């Protein structure tokens, strides 16, 4: 009636101002909103990496020879490896057992002789506990050793000519250096948007239920939608600041390229941010309890974003059930998009498709959240 439309702007402004003040005055908000993302950026950017760099490797040479020395200097030339000479295999095994080296390269007694006959054998022992690191390291070691041998062949020093041998030249696309930071940082944007969104907002409505403030608020001309919109506004701001932090860190600290359109990155990130803010608000309103809400938010938004979105595990190799679950998680759609935008470039069709899906989620969640603050206590 008369009051329905009028006053909307005034009420919304008043509510947004209130939410802003509450957010700024609550230190834990700033901690989770700004410091946690910063910590995650640094952790994922510097600490977490699937790459092998300067891996300690024990080298055992039973019989010194020119060939053996060349192999060692080949290893020393690699920035991924840090070889150290040890005299006996027993000693090397001891180091491996202690975890002081990740691998042993063993050049047996007959190495030089067999090498001349082009039948050289090299023993590589790897610490298989971390299989990802082990196989990467294996590739580096065998690559380095075979390269040394090829050089000898090229110089015409060793046995047979290179005839019949096939050299495989690897070329990684999109992530040319096969650098996991490149792969992790776009995913980090998703994680931070999820965390700021769902986790911070999951407390908001529940806190008002717990403190009884909603009951007073309900009996005013205020509309449920206004309550929801007002709660979104300040946290969109926090999310955008975090997004900026991620983009700057990606570019400046980690040299991750942003090949797609910056506009597409901003639009899709904001869309996803709104979805995850709304998810948090909905959980908050549905549980009406801050503790339960934060637990549920963590389990239903952050964990799936980490495990199911394709951040850690490639979704093409998962069973159909997991695949379906993954498709339900909004983070999956954003994860695929943001990785493409960062590393490959702008695929506008994909941007449109993902944003449509996210928009649908936003609409659905707005309706659901509005129901949880529908001005009824029963």
């Amino acid at each position, binding site marked *: 009636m008369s009051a329905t439309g009028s006053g909307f702007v005034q009420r919304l402004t*008043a509510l947004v101002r209130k939410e802003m*003040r509450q957010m700024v005055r609550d230190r834990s908000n700033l901690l989770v909103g700004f410091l946690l993302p910063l910590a995650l950026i640094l952790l994922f950017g510097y600490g977490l990496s699937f790459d092998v760099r300067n891996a300690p490797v024990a080298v055992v040479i039973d019989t010194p020879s020119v060939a053996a020395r060349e192999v060692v200097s080949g290893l020393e030339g690699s920035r991924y490896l840090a070889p150290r000479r040890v005299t006996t295999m027993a000693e090397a095994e001891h180091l491996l057992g202690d975890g002081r080296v990740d691998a042993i390269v063993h050049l047996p007694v007959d190495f030089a002789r067999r090498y001349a006959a082009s039948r050289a054998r090299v023993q590589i022992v790897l610490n298989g506990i971390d299989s990802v690191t082990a196989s990467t390291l294996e590739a580096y070691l065998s690559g380095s050793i075979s390269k040394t041998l090829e050089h000898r062949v090229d110089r015409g020093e060793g046995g047979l000519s290179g005839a019949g041998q096939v050299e495989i030249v690897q070329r990684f696309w999109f992530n040319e250096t096969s650098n996991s930071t490149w792969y992790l940082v776009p995913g980090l944007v998703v994680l931070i948007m999820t965390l700021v969104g769902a986790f911070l907002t999951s407390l908001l409505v529940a806190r008002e239920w717990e403190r*009884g403030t909603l*009951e007073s608020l309900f*009996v*005013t001309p205020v509309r449920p939608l206004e309550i929801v919109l007002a709660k979104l506004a300040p946290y969109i701001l926090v999310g955008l600041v975090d997004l900026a932090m991620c983009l700057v860190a990606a570019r400046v600290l980690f040299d991750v390229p942003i090949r797609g359109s910056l506009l597409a990155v901003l639009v899709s990130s904001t869309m996803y941010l709104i979805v995850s803010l709304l998810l948090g608000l909905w959980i908050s309103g549905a549980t009406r309890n801050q503790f339960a809400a934060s637990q549920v938010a963590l389990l239903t938004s952050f964990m799936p974003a980490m495990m199911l979105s394709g951040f850690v595990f490639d979704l093409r190799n998962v069973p159909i059930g997991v695949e379906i679950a993954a498709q339900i998680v909004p983070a999956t759609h954003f994860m695929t998009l943001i990785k493409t935008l960062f590393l490959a470039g702008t695929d506008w069709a994909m941007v449109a498709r993902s944003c449509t899906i996210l928009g649908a989620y936003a609409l659905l969640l707005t309706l659901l959240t509005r129901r949880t603050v529908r001005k009824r206590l029963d």
Partner: protein
Amino acid sequence: MSRAVDIYGTGEVERAPPIIVARDLVKRFEGPDGAPFDALKGVSFEVAAGRLTALVGPDGAGKTTLMRMIAGLLRADGGALQVLGHDAAQDAQEIQSRISYMPQRFGLYEDLSIQENLDLYADLHGVPAHVRGDRFARLLEMTDLARFTARPAGNLSGGMKQKLGLACTLVRVPDLLLLDEPSVGVDPLSRRDLWEIIEQMIAEEGLSVLVSTAYMDEAARCERVHVFNKGEQLAEGTPGELRAQVTGLTYVAAPREGEPARDLQARLIDARDRIVDAVPSGGKVHFIRRPECAADSLGDLLVGCEARAREEELEDAFMLLLRAHEEEEEPTASDQGGPDQDGEAALSSGGPEPDQDGAPIIVVRDLVRRFGDFTAVASTSFDVRPGEIFGLLGPNGAGKTTTFHMLCGLLPATSGHLEVAGVNLRQARATARRRIGYVAQKFSLYANLSVRENLEFFGGAYGLRGRTLRARVRAIETRFDLDPQAQSGNLPHGYKQRLAMAAGLLHEPRILFLDEPTSGIDPLARRAFWRTITQLSQEGVTIIVTTHFMEEAEYCDRIAIQDAGRLLALGTPREVREEAGPRGQDMNSAFIAIVENARAHERTRAAAPESVA
């Protein structure tokens, strides 16, 4: 005054149509045991415009449910409700835009300042900017909050929060003002201030107000009163009409010389067939005779005490209605709790009188407790003698609970001497604790254990085991009339209170500490509770109790009044009333007088720093 005319037109106030019309209103909730339970059982009534109307009733009467339905926050399961001409179920928003509502716990935003809270509600209600200046100034002046506008609401005392809540609901002139127990849990001073504000606003703006309350003195100030109990309306009328029901039934009796008023009160209230209600008041006993019982048949109860007729009060009418309703509901089991049947036997045999000359069982000397810069308890000294009932009274934040916690050995004192049952608490807290029983304000019961399991657990915690434990549990179950199989979480509030007390008494302590034992239970259960307490005291148990019901101080042998950490008065209820001077007619006004005198004194003494702050 002219406002009333503006809104309703000259002479329209009396003939105005009702603003609330309820017809056969039913509201059903799920009870704690999962079974449906009717909070409102088909209630019909009307509230007229331009009046101050009260909904009175004990806790669980359905007052809050009704308020929330009128505010459009709950939907009826049956019947119809019209508010300001709108259907409460269909047009909730229309109603919510026109009324102001102060819920029992007004939702102030604690991290916003007083001014910001006011601004928020003014914005939400669309109060025009040019009206605000004057209105805010007036509200702040009435609530005495003008000095603190920049202070966050979270840093206000309980009474100040309540006043700010009221101010927030009054940022504009509503067509109907709903106040749900505005003064519950608020100290007598703030309670009086709140009512002054409400009455001033009604006088100046001709507001239509519906207020719910459990205090009869507040209901007596209203033009019309609706009495509720257990989801039903028992009666309605002007306070005068309701009082007329008890005309000629109300008496006041003075106990014999040397007999505590509460013993006479106990004798009277145990005679259910002849007496509706009896309470100690001002050293005497106020009681109500049953209408069907002849006036001259009370001789054996009074045994020589003189009983004179006394002017009837609204409270008397309320108690008569409640008692009749209880008996109608459960004609046989009229016991709201307490060991009433055995009570009489224990009484007639005459328990040992408290040994007035005995050494004190609790000695407190210069007790101080500080939390950082804040002094919660300042240099407090008092004694409690064995077998006494000792009451600690004070507004919220006075230091009652802190003192209490130190006495029970739950909180170490900053300095001072503290001796409980002959044991110095600073050295041997564990020993002292074994000699005391403690009933916390939020009864520490395990909701998903049965009554017996709870008792056995607490008995074990106090070091009872084997046969002794079983025997004590059986004995206490019988004494408190507890059903051992009932699940504790599903018990009604008064019953839980009994169980909590039973648990505190398992190890037969010499001292029983009760923290706010009667808050949230209805008047009949409160009477039964005090009946148990007086009986325990006659058996020689020393009782220390805190309460915010001032009239309950009359049950105590001696009381201490605390405010802002300091002990303001100490003595028998009569001594304290006399100390308060001519204003101290009853405990409530005595309390207000004492606290106000002390605060005025403090202000003159520390005038300079106060004005800086």
